[in-house]
C-alpha cells in the first residue's frame, strides 16, 4: 500500500492491524474525507470493499473518488459492493420492532454473502466494510439503538471470522448530551482505532482545515508493543486527497 498515499501521517498513525476503525466528526469539521481516503486505499490495495451508504447516493462517491484518481464505477462491477440504503431511509415509513430487526438481519445476511463470495473467489485479500454513517443507521432503525448495536456487533464478528476490517463514520456532536451517549460510547468501546476530526482548537486558518486525533487502542496487536498510541496533527482537504502535517510544520 506504500504507493497509494502511503507514508503520510494518517497511515503511519493507523498502523497495521486495526480491525474496527471509528471516524468521529462534527458539523464544523466533517470527516467524510477520511472515509473517502480509506475507501480509495482499500480498493487500491487490491482488496474488496462494501459501502453501506446512507448519507449520499452513489454518484456523489463516484465524483469525489474520481477526483482522487479512483474509478468507483469500474470497481463496482468487481470489487466494490455498494449498498444503497439511501432509499431505505426514505421509504421506511412506520415499521414495527420486528420488521426493523428483520430488515437489519436481511442487510447483515447480504453483507455476509458478499464477503463469502469475496473469500471464495481468487480475490482473498483484505475486505473492508464501510458505513456512512452510523447516525443515519440509527435513523433507519427508527431510533432503536439496540438493533443498531446488534447489527454492528454482528459486523464486528465478521472481523474475527474473515479477513475483514470495518470503518464506521459517526457524528459525535449529535451525542453530546448525556442520555444520547449510548451509541457513541458503545462504538468507542468496540473500536480498535478512533480517528477524530475536529476544528482547529486555536481558531480558523486559511490553509488548515482542522485537526485529527488518532487513538490506536489495538489491544491485541503484538507487532508494536511500544508504538505511539496517540497522534495529533492538522489536515488540509484538497480536491485530490488530503494533506496531513504536524502543527507548525507548514506555512
Amino acid at each position, binding site marked *: 500500500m506504500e504507493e497509494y498515499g502511503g507514508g503520510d501521517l494518517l497511515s503511519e498513525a493507523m498502523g497495521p492491524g486495526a480491525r474496527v476503525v471509528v471516524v468521529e466528526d462534527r458539523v464544523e469539521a466533517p470527516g467524510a474525507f477520511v472515509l473517502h481516503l480509506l475507501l480509495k486505499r482499500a480498493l487500491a490495495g487490491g482488496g474488496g470493499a462494501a459501502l453501506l451508504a446512507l448519507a449520499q447516493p452513489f454518484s456523489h462517491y463516484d465524483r469525489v473518488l474520481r477526483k482522487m484518481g479512483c474509478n468507483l464505477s469500474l470497481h463496482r462491477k468487481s470489487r466494490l459492493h455498494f449498498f444503497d440504503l439511501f432509499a431505505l431511509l426514505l421509504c421506511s415509513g412506520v415499521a414495527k420492532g420486528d420488521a426493523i430487526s428483520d430488515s437489519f438481519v436481511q442487510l447483515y*445476511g447480504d453483507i455476509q454473502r458478499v464477503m463469502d463470495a469475496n473469500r471464495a473467489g481468487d480475490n482473498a485479500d483484505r475486505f473492508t466494510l464501510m458505513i456512512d454513517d452510523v447516525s443515519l443507521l440509527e435513523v433507519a432503525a427508527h431510533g432503536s439503538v439496540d438493533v443498531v448495536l*446488534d447489527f454492528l456487533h454482528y459486523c464486528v464478528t465478521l472481523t474475527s471470522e474473515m479477513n475483514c476490517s470495518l470503518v464506521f463514520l459517526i457524528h459525535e456532536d449529535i451525542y453530546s448530551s448525556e442520555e444520547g451517549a*449510548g451509541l457513541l460510547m458503545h462504538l468507542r*468501546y468496540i473500536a480498535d482505532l478512533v480517528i477524530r476530526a475536529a476544528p482547529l*482548537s486555536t481558531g480558523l486558518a486559511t490553509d488548515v482545515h482542522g485537526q485529527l486525533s488518532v487513538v490506536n487502542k489495538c489491544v491485541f496487536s503484538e507487532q508494536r508493543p511500544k508504538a505511539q498510541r496517540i497522534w495529533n496533527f492538522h489536515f488540509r482537504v484538497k480536491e485530490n486527497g488530503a494533506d496531513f502535517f504536524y502543527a507548525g510544520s507548514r506555512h
Partner: protein
Amino acid sequence: MSEAVARCLRDGRLDGEHAPALAVGSTLRCSPLAARAMLHLAAAVASHAAAGKAQARGLVIVAFDRSPEVYLDFMRRRGLDQNALNRCVHILDCYSDPIGWKEKIRSQQQHESSVDLCATNKANVIVFRNVKDVDKLLCSSIDLGRGFEGTGKICFSIAVDSISSMLRHASVSSISSFLSNLRSHDQISSIFWLIHSDLHEPKFSRAFECLTTMVASLEPAVVDSVHEEEIPGDVSFLEENYSKAKFYVRLKRRNGRVKHLYEELHVEGNEVRFVSMPSVSTEVNQSLLPKVQFNLELSEKERSDRANVVLPFEHQGKGEPIRIYDGRRSLPEDQRDPNLTASALLDEVPKSATPKGEIHYIRDSDDEQPDSDEDPDDDLDI
C-alpha cells in the same frame, strides 16, 4: 494480579458460604487494559486449575465481547498447552451469534451451500444463540462446567466478559439473579466478571458490586484535569494511559471488614504486570510530614537520656510517701499527724534555724468551700 485476589479465586468457596466473586470495573479510558487484566485473570485461574493447585477443576468463560479464539490464544502464549486447554477451559461463545441472526440467515438459505461460520471444530467451545434468555444461559454455563473431568465433587470457576454486553439484552434484575444463582450454586468455586461502568448508570454497577466479595477498579494513570476528553486538543500526554493504569482493589472480609489495596497495572506487549504501590495511609503519612531542615528524630542515646531525666515533680518524695497538705481534710483526721496540724506548723516556723520565706495559709472556717464561686469582693461597697 494482586496476589490476594488471585489467591481468593484459586482457593474458592468454603462450605456453607457463597463462592467468592470479583467485579472488575473500568471506564473507556482503561478499556484496553481492563480487557488485558481480564485475560490475565482468566489465564491465571486456568493455569492454577490445570496444575491442580486450585479448588476448581476448570474455568468456564462466558464470552460476549471477544471471540473465544482470543482467550485461547492468550492462554497458549501463557504456556498452557492444547491438552490443558481442552481439559480445563470451556467457553460458552455468546460472541459469534448472540441473538441467532446467523442461524436465521442460514435456515433461510438452506438450499445454498453455505458454511456455518460459527461452527467450531473445537470441543470446548459451544455457541450460545439466545442471550436474551438468561435462565437458559445459566443452565448452559453450569452444564458446561459439569463437563470437566474429575472424581468426587467437581468445582469450577466462571468468568463473564462482560456484564455490560449482557445488560444490552437483559434487565438488571435478571442478571443479578443470574449472578447470585451462580454464586450460591454448590459446584461453583469462584466467579469474576468485567463491567464497563461508564456505559450504564452508576447504580447498575453498584447493584452488581453488592453481590461481590472483591471489587477491582481500573482508573487512568494520567488524568487530564484541565480539558474534558470531549474538547479536542493535544492529548498526547495521555499516552501513558495505554500502558499503565491504577488498579484499586477492595476486599470484603467475612466479618465485614474491608481492605483496600492499590497497585499499578503495566502492560507491555503480551506481558501484564502488577506493581504494588505503597498503601494509601503510608502515602498520606509520608506526604504530611513537614519538610524541615533540622532533625526531628531522636537517636537511641538521646532517647535513653530523655527517659532518665527526673522531672521537677518527681523528686519531692525521695522515696517517702508524698504528703501534700489538703485543707479540705477534716481536722480530727489530720490530728493523727502532728506535723501537719495548723498549730504544729505555726510552732515550728520560728524554731527553724534558717528561716525561709514561707507562706502558710490557714483557712478561716470549714464553712467556706475551698473553691467557692462566691465573688470575693462582694462585701466591698463600691
